[in-house]
């Protein structure tokens, strides 16, 4: 009876240990926090952690078309060469699923984060 109890404890301990190992791998390999993905013509060209403050120019290969600024955990377009300036006027984004779209330059800034509550789409 005692032996069985000991075996059970060993087994439970073993399972927990394996679970902990999986959890550790999961947390170590996962990306740190939320980031802003930059899409140009539908292709992701860069991603920046929202913790990485700085100015990130987006180019069309030659000239800078949009200036992405990350500050205070939020991403925004500070400057753009497009006539309508809709992307510049757009609020800073920080929550999963939020996007800034610049139609003339075909640029999309999308916030990607590990959260269960992010909507699949925003309209």
């Amino acid at each position, binding site marked *: 009876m005692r032996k069985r109890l000991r075996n059970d404890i060993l087994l439970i301990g073993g399972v927990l240990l*394996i679970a902990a190992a999986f959890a550790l791998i999961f947390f170590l390999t996962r990306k740190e926090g939320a980031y802003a993905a930059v899409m140009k013509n539908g292709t992701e060209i860069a991603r920046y952690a929202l913790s990485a403050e700085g100015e990130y120019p987006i180019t069309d290969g030659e000239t800078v078309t949009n200036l992405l600024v990350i500050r205070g955990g939020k991403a925004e377009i500070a400057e753009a060469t497009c006539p309508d300036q809709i992307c510049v006027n757009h609020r800073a984004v920080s929550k999963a699923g939020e996007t800034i779209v610049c139609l003339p330059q075909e640029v999309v800034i999308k916030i990607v984060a590990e959260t269960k509550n992010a909507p699949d789409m925003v309209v």
Partner: protein
Amino acid sequence: MKRLFSLLTAAALLLSFCACARGETKYTDYSFDYFDTVTTIVGYADSKEEFDGVVSELKALLLEYHRLYDIYHRYEGINNLCTVNDLTDGVHQTVQVDQKILDLLSYAKELYTVTEGKMNVAMGSVLSIWHQYRTNGISHPEEAALPPMEQLREAANHTDIGQMILDETDSTVFLADPAMRLDVGAIAKGYATEQVALYLEEKGITGYLLNVGGNVRCVGAHPDGEPWSVGIENPDTENTEKPHIAYLHLTGQSLVTSGSYQRFYTVEGVRYHHIIDPETLMPGTNFLSVSVLCADSGRADALSTALFTMTYEEGAALIESLADAEAMWVLPDGEQRYSGGFQNYTYQ
């Protein structure tokens, strides 16, 4: 026995960990080639190749609809709506068109009746003036001006949809008033989105979410059967604390938002957006945005435009008279109003 149970528990635990790695993966595609807007396709597939295959089929279809319904450009070898407008410019002309154009225009006639004339594809003469002033005002803000009211009123004399004659037998469009112009901006995107979604459904493909410039159409649900989560943008575009004002759980339906914040230009500090009231010939000022939820994306598109220029009371009466439609209105002060069943779909 106990041991066996423990082993089984352990196995189940391990399997549950592996489960995250298995199953279908969610992919997203962005493109800018259709209807002068951004198209987002979200879908679940076993591989990137499988997703790309579906996306390229959808894009081929969208391109075909985009070219046929384009009122600004003509394309080699096809008669599109731009051709119809150009050839009819001041002269009587019967134009041979693709069946997809006839289908859109006859659907638009039906929605004209449903919306009591608030969604009118024969309003092109008026809308083209606004388009010209808006485009110019965006490119040259220092020159931004409002269109002269006499010019708008003159154009409004040529917006009788009864003068748009469709001949299904000969596949032709004839504008009996040659000063009339077609503008399908209030319905074409939604209609095309619906057709593309139907194509997927006919092929038995589910687990896709399409968004063509604010026309969202769900095809099925998530692979695990859970509904899609769709957020509605806060029309107060300065508000960084609350980017979305509502979240809905949707399966298979369409959600379209028309907003005054989406496309506008500024004249002497005042914003003038793109949704023009057929009665006042000016941008509607009753709401910041109107969202419509119903099965058919073309219908949702037309209804959201129509509701935008109606009063809340008129719009609410229209929505309640339709069996399958729900709506949310955002008033200028930010107040949100809902049709009877809208909040059955929202979650916190």
